Structures are given as structure tokens and as C-alpha cells.
């Protein structure tokens, strides 16, 4: 019995590692730079599909949320709602300087609601303005490692 359980566990780990669906959620104030680099990551030159990574259209299907851009007060609640819609286990990757710290826009300006990790828990940070698609792929890989650790018992 125990060996079977272990086998299922390792199978679950394998499946989580090999199939990762992303949901791209812009955090409000963004310049599109990071977003076009995320889009570039699915296109032929970088092609994340060879690692089993897909961009999912709906947050309900996603495993990893990519948050790019700066938190504005206007979109704070929307992002929180998207985060809650994603089923467990999930991981969040903050992409770009804006998501990490606010970049040139600072966190003190009037429309800004702080950084992304003040709103939702962030697992991996990818620096860059914007990061190269390769860096984004590496960030997602880091997030997958975190997902694996978080693996619950398969039911």
C-alpha cells in the first residue's frame, strides 16, 4: 500500500513538474514591456511549450500566476480576486522591477498601492526592466520547484 502511495506521490510530482499552465495577470500600472516579453516567451524563438508550459486563458486553469507591472489602487481588488480564483497548489511570479519595487514610479505616488507582494504572496522575483524571456522561463522553473515542495497528498 505504502509503495503504491509513494508511486502516486512521485507521479504527482512528475506531472506538476511537466505540466505548468500560466496565467498572465497584469498588475495595473504597467508599461507593456514585461507583457510583450511574456508573450515573446511562447513564440517560436523561446517556445515554452517544449517544457509543457502553456498560457491559460482563464485563472481557473492556472498553476502559476505571472504578475507584471505596478500595483495601482484601481486594480488592487481585481488582482486579489484573480489570485483567489486560482486553485491550489499555486505559485506567484513577480516579473520586472515594477512588480518588485515600483521602479521609477516609486511606491509613494498617489495612485500606487504598493508593491505586488504587499497584496498577494509572491514566490519568485524576476529582476529586469523588462527581463529577457529566458529570465522569465528561469523564473517559472523556480516557481515549479516551489510548487513541487508544496505538493499535497494526491487524493
Amino acid at each position, binding site marked *: 500500500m505504502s509503495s503504491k502511495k509513494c508511486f502516486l506521490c512521485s507521479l504527482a510530482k512528475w506531472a506538476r513538474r511537466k505540466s505548468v499552465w500560466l496565467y498572465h495577470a497584469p498588475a495595473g500600472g504597467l508599461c507593456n514591456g514585461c507583457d510583450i516579453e511574456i508573450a515573446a516567451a511562447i513564440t517560436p524563438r*523561446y517556445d515554452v511549450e517544449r517544457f509543457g508550459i502553456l498560457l491559460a486563458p482563464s485563472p481557473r486553469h492556472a498553476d502559476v500566476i505571472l504578475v507584471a507591472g505596478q500595483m495601482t489602487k484601481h486594480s488592487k481588488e481585481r488582482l486579489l480576486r484573480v489570485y483567489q480564483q486560482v486553485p491550489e497548489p499555486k505559485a506567484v511570479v513577480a516579473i520586472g*522591477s515594477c512588480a518588485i*519595487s515600483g521602479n521609477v514610479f516609486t511606491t509613494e505616488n498617489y495612485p500606487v498601492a504598493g508593491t505586488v507582494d504587499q497584496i498577494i504572496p509572491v514566490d519568485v522575483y524576476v*529582476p*529586469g*526592466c523588462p527581463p529577457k524571456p529566458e*529570465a522569465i*522561463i528561469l523564473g517559472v522553473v*523556480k516557481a515549479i520547484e*516551489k510548487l513541487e515542495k508544496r505538493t499535497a497528498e494526491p487524493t
Partner: protein
Amino acid sequence: MKSSIVKEALKYFVNPVTEAFPAAKPYFPKKYRGPPVYDQDKCMGCTACAHVCPADAITVIEKDGKRTLEVWYGKCTFCARCEESCPADAIHLMEEFGVPSEDKLAFKSTVTHDMVKCKLCGKPFITIRHAEWIKKNLLEKMSDVVGSEEIDFFLTVCEDCRHKVENIPEFRKLLIRAAIKGGKV
């Protein structure tokens, strides 16, 4: 009807354009603007980089007689303005990207310098290396205008104290002499 797209698609079918990313190194051109790092040997702590940084990613911390310059490339715009403005060629943008991390405070490069303490009030106000550099440059370029005495005075007394000591006659004389040598009164 769809001949050209089919032809092109078949061409792509034979040679996909995907790069073997994790195996092969990604393309970095010469002078790629990656994360900035300090060179401890060259840096003299003049804070020129902190002044030009558009995102305030470079912070200056003065504590216990030491000045620490810290570039946090979690906030950096990778514009290379610091590299451009550095007088000592001590900050460089790496030709690779910043590696993703679970800790956002890990994206850092720091450099620490000892500071000169003001002779009069004991407040540290300039780094030792910066003072040496100023002295060297002034002696080289303006030795006919200022003597080493005046330079030493300027580099050992802090700004606040200089304002105060302007009222002390001896120093006042010194200042006037320096001013006359400079050609202005």
C-alpha cells in the same frame, strides 16, 4: 489560396527557429545592459551614481564612520546612466541577466568605504579615497592656483564647520589667499 503560408510553414517544419535555451547560452550583444555591479577596488564612494539614478535604485547609507553604496537591481531600470557618469569607471553593467530569486533583497551589489572625520566636529563627511582623488586631481590640474595646505584644509573640515570657521580670522586669511590665487575676490 493558401500556398504561401503552407510553403512557409513547411520551411519552418524542417528548421524550427527555437533556441536550445537551457543548454545553449542566450544571445547577449556587446554592451548588453544587465544588472550593475560595483568594483570595490576602483570605487571611491563619490555617490555620483546615486545622484543620476532615475529610479533611486542606488542608496547611500552612512553609518559608524563608513559609507555604503548599495545598488538594488530589484528597482533598477538598467539604463546605464551610473556607468556613464562614474568618474572612476567603477560600476559596470554585467552582460547577462539577473537570475530570478525567491528573495527580492538578494538582487544587490554593495561597496563600503571608510570615511574621513572632520577635524573640528568629528563628523564623517567624505570617503578617504574620494578625498585622495580630489587632492590628486587638484594638484595635477590646478597646482598653480591652490596649494596643498588649502586642499588639506578643505578635505579635512566638513561643510558645516567650514561655514562656522569663516569667522575665525586665521582661516579667513587662508580662504582669502586661496581666493586671490584663484583670481577672484
